[in-house]
């Protein structure tokens, strides 16, 4: 396998691996130092599975006694009968890692969670603030030691290399940009590629135990062997390219977002609609004050009502444009409160703006008259949407298609309009289109096949003027091969009514019997 020399990457990535996250968290929760009190005895954290309790983590004494992650508790007890257990807390671990990812931004501008127990921090161009990358690592190690978390750290040009060094390299490993990563990492085990267990087992069976072993194999052979593995975690080639920086590896950065939240705890549980509406109006006013301080406007609002009998009722609202109008918010919620069953009463009401958008502060109108001058368009759309549903209030947008009924779609009214090719001016199109073309019964045909008299909706129409045909072929790349072409005609009947009719297919086109006629649109 021949490798091109890897271009030096300008990025620097710090990988933090909390090697024993669950045990550290358990110890911190009990206020114990390492090897002190309950931690001195063998202990395992367990989770319940279908086959009985299984160990997810064990402390140092437990590991020494033979308990390992992934073992059944019964097996571990036979090795070490005095093994103590505590329940594992995976949700708490995840929440802790999320908080840790935000906290780790003290070493770099953005960070990402590396499930299940790691954090990736981009430290490009910030190492000089700490006096160099080695000092940065030492600083981080000291701060984590003060938090009594055992971590392993590494800095490398890619997230993959940093992960590999943090998990399987020497402590506080540094991979400089001028180093050749393929050579420096060749001695790491194959598990350093962040592969799933099946793939690691497969590679072991193939005799590939170290990263350097992969370099000895021709790349085409590996491509052929793993050609069906699309996901990165199952394909060692993708992982190797990510590690060497040949393909980019996007990470999802963690951003700390604070959803504005206001609540009212009520002295007396309320059971009546008017009181509830007053509370919601108060909450809306509080929320508006909160949003105003941050120059935000709410797009989505969630109202939670906690009932005395231990139930929660939720209502959700989305508005068409960011709003900071308390009366508008309260009015929209008022319609949604109609079917709330208060039961024995509501004791706590909470309003949360889970989606906000920037909304600059605006000057209030000086004149009272301006306030009476009607509602804004966004408020009007909101009120229509809340009562009629989002599907009822829409606007037509063009779509690239030749078929008239496909050539327009309906979208939400205030969204941005995509640029599209404009309609051809020489195509006459009707003012209105029926949702389903209606069949017409041809009573009398002219020799060239056009209807002279036809019946539609129990009335007879005599065709006086005709223009056409405009032939529209089926979209063969999308439709079945038996779909027939359409010949459209603009017609005007004896009373001056103008319709758009088409003949579905041609006689003898081999796609069905005699062609039928349909009426699809009408002009004014």
């Amino acid at each position, binding site marked *: 396998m021949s490798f091109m020399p890897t271009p030096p990457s300008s990025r620097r990535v710090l990988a933090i691996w909390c090697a024993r996250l669950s045990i550290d968290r358990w110890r911190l929760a009990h206020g114990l130092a390492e090897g002190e009190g309950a931690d001195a005895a063998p202990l395992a954290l367990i989770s319940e599975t279908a086959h009985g309790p299984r160990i997810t983590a064990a402390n140092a004494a437990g590991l020494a006694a033979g308990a390992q992650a992934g073992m059944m508790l019964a097996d571990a007890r036979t090795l070490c009968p005095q093994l103590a257990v505590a329940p594992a807390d995976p949700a708490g671990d995840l929440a802790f890692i999320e908080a840790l990812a935000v906290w780790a931004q003290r070493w770099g501008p953005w960070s990402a969670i590396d499930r299940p127990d790691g954090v990736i921090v981009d430290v490009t161009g910030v190492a000089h603030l700490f006096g160099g990358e080695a000092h940065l690592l030492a600083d981080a190690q000291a701060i984590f030691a003060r938090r009594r978390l055992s971590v392993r750290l590494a800095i490398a040009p890619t997230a993959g290399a940093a992960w590999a060094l943090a998990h399987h390299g020497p402590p506080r490993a540094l991979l400089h940009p001028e180093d050749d990563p393929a050579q420096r990492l060749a001695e790491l085990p194959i598990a350093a590629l962040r592969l799933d267990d099946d793939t690691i087992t497969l590679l072991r069976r193939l005799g590939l135990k170290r990263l350097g072993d992969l370099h000895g194999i021709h790349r085409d052979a590996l491509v052929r062997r793993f050609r069906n593995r699309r996901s990165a975690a199952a394909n060692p080639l993708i992982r190797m390219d990510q590690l060497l920086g040949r393909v980019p590896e996007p990470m999802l950065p963690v951003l700390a977002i604070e959803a504005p939240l206001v609540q009212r705890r009520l002295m007396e549980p309320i059971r009546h609609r008017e009181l509830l509406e007053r509370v919601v109006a108060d909450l809306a006013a509080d929320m508006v004050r909160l949003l105003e301080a941050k120059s935000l406007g709410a797009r989505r609002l969630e109202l939670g009502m906690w009932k005395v009998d231990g139930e929660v009722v939720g209502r959700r609202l989305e508005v068409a444009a960011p709003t900071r109008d308390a009366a508008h918010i309260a009015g929209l919620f008022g319609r949604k409160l109609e079917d709330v069953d208060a039961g024995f009463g509501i004791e706590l009401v909470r309003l949360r703006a889970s989606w906000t958008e920037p909304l600059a502060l605006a000057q209030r109108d000086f004149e009272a008259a301006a306030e009476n001058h009607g509602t804004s368009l966004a408020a009007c759309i909101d009120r229509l949407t809340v009562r009629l549903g989002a599907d009822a209030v829409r606007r037509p947008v063009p779509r690239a298609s030749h078929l008239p009924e496909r050539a327009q779609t309906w979208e939400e009214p205030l969204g941005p309009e995509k640029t599209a090719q404009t309609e051809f001016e020489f195509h006459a199109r009707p003012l209105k289109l029926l949702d389903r073309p209606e069949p017409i019964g041809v009573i009398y045909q002219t020799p060239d096949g056009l209807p002279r008299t036809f019946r539609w909706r129990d009335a007879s129409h005599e065709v006086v003027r005709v223009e056409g045909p405009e032939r529209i072929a089926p979209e063969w790349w999308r439709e079945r091969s038996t779909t027939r072409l359409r010949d459209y005609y603009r017609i005007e009947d004896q009373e*001056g009514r103008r319709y758009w009719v088409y003949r579905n297919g041609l006689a003898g086109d081999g796609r069905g019997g005699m062609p039928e006629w349909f009426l699809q649109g009408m002009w004014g």
Partner: protein
Amino acid sequence: MPITNVADRPELISGADVLSPSRANEWQPGVSAIGPIHTEIFARADDAAGAAVSLAFAMDHLQAATPDPLADTPDERPWLWVQDREALRRTGRPYRAGLPRRLRHRLVHVAARTTEDALFALEEGLRCRELAFVIGEITGNPRALDMTASRRLGLAAERHGVPFWLVRLDFRRDLSSARQRWDVRAAPSPPPRWNPEAPGVPSWQAELFRARRHPPGRWTLRDDGALAAERGVSLDTLDLQHTLPC
């Protein structure tokens, strides 16, 4: 004798609102600077004449309106088209490529299930200051659309200055507070210059049978880029059966 609407209390009609008889007789659609703000158009449900006439009136209204001298952008306000379920089923949905070029990208369409929902949507639209005009299409004689509802809509339109055309499909002429009431049906179009066999510019036989400021009359309306009107039948020979009080 000015023609007044039964819905108007006498003191609401000021002298300026009533045209002198000579001017009133000269009036015809497409000529006055600004038309009335609340108009009803009666049409059949088997063609699109009602919607087309209301759009022609709306275009005429937009062209006649004097632009705001302080505005630096052209008037690009959206407009609202409300249809109840039966109107949608019988006369179809608006088709973007067939709408007037100036109005195409500004349409907000509301498909209401019931007449009550349609009336709610119309009133909300009339109370919105950012809409250029509102068109409604309602089929039949629903109980919800009575004199009170019609008056509500008319008052909202006048208060907020949003022009309003209500197309009533297959409708019996009952009480209403609209300022003008038209009965519209399709008319044979003039033959086009280049292809006499083809349908020409849209034409309608329009009868104004109730108006607040003008005597009733009949015109042939054409939408040839701008709204044009020809007086078809003179006032004297007006067919009595079309002017029955309602």
